[in-house]
């Protein structure tokens, strides 16, 4: 073997090694605009419940991790195009998404709720504290909500379980307006363009606190049905090639790490820190 061949071989082997090291670094996609799940601070750093939890899980798995910011409406396409390896972006596990990607077990769940500005007619809406769409006998509550929402402009973030629920027809045909980010929903709820908004409860509570605006949540806490089965880590469906096998292994690793983190009380602790309520599951 001459020197030339040797050099090429060395370069190839070292490239392979570099690739392996690089491949071991798990890239986690997140939105960075959905507090308290994930957010971006003033200096542009990603912060929030899932950022801290993600690093904790990686510590347990002994993987090196890095977070990649990605707009919400392109989250699943970006995962499929391998811009990152997994999603941790407050993404609920739903059958519709499971057609395209797979999820780890859930790590947290948080009810969705309607919100209005103080003084809205919806404040007097008389419903029980919570509604689980997986159970039967919800007709009466849904009817109350349907008549309360009739003729109102209901605002949601695009491509969310909340938009899915409004499109499902469970509360009649409402006038839905979809925004790119939850921030924009909050802005237009304050300005009065939206009569009512639907999102995760914590995002309204967080916004009301941070902005000082009189946003209040009304009606029941929604769960089940279109609202999915908690928030999990989104991962590509495994395959037979190298990346597919790695994806399948990542799914196993994340499931195991979530178990460990739950047992150690890490998820509960972080949930209370960010949500002021144990939303872990």
């Amino acid at each position, binding site marked *: 073997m001459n020197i030339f061949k040797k050099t090429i071989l060395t370069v190839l082997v070292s490239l392979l090694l570099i690739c392996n090291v690089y491949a071991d670094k798990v890239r986690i996609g997140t939105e960075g605009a959905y507090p308290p799940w994930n957010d971006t601070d003033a200096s542009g750093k990603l912060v929030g419940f899932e950022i801290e939890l993600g690093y904790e899980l990686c510590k347990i798995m002994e993987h090196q991790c890095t977070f990649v910011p990605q707009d919400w*409406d*392109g989250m*699943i*396409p970006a995962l*499929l195009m391998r811009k990152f390896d997994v999603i941790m972006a407050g993404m609920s596990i739903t059958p*519709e998404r499971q057609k*395209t990607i797979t999820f780890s077990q859930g790590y947290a769940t948080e009810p969705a709720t309607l919100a209005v500005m103080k003084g809205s007619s919806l404040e007097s809406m008389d419903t029980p504290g919570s509604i689980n769409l997986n159970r039967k006998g919800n007709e009466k509550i849904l009817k109350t909500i349907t008549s309360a929402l009739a003729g109102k402009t209901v605002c949601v973030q*695009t*491509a969310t379980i909340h*938009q899915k629920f409004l499109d499902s027809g469970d509360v009649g045909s409402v006038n839905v*307006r*979809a*925004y*790119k980010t939850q921030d*924009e929903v909050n*802005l*237009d709820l*304050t*300005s*009065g*363009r939206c009569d009512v908004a639907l999102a995760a409860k914590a995002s309204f509570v967080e916004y009301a606190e941070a902005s000082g605006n009189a946003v209040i949540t009304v009606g029941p806490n929604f769960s089940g049905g279109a609202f999915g089965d908690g928030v999990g880590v989104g991962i590509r469906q495994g395959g037979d090639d190298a990346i597919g096998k790695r994806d399948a292994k990542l799914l196993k690793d994340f499931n195991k790490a979530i178990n460990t983190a739950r047992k150690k009380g890490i998820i509960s602790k972080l949930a209370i820190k960010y949500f002021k309520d144990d939303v872990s599951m």
Partner: protein
Amino acid sequence: MDFDLMFTSFPKLLGATVVTLKLLSASLFFGLIIGLLFAILRLNKNIFINKFAYGYSYLFRGTPLLVQIFIIYFGLGQIEYLRSTFLWVILKEPYWCAIIAFTLNTGAYTSEILRSAFQTIKPGIIEAGKSLGISSKIIFYKIQIPIAIRQSLPAYGNEIILMMKGTSLASTVTLMDLTGVAKYIISTTFKPIEVFIVAGGIYLFMTFIIHNVIKFLEKKYSFSQ
């Protein structure tokens, strides 16, 4: 490649094209009026009127259309006083906010296109009119404006095409135009390539139509005939 999805999304996208065309025609109509008005103001000898018109076109040509839409939609919506006035009836609707932003933007470009067209009119033509005893008002309406419009056709055709593509920004303020519906379909199917190819094809077809209409008009009103 999911051809099924391309076929099923086509009629939905075509329906949304109506919204795009409405936005485009409304903003071009109002934009042309504003553009003509400001082009005339630009030619005024009074320095204040002149600078005011220049400032308008400088401002709207110097900032991105997306920023203009955001300021008009989200920015003005944050001013509490405004929300108590009659203006809120219009500004409350994303549709009107988009039309206002597009109109002001295309108006600025149109005013520049028309101004340069006015300035290319040879003084001899105006002098010829004067020597025939035609009043300067009639010279302006019957000679200067028609020539300016003919001169500006190629540049204005470009502006129409740019504006047509610019309307895709309406989806950022919740309007379900061609881009908005395309994004909505993607949000449920997670297949951006197929849907954007169809949407892009529709945009391309609209450009094709506009381009040919302008070409036809250019030929019809060309001076050499």
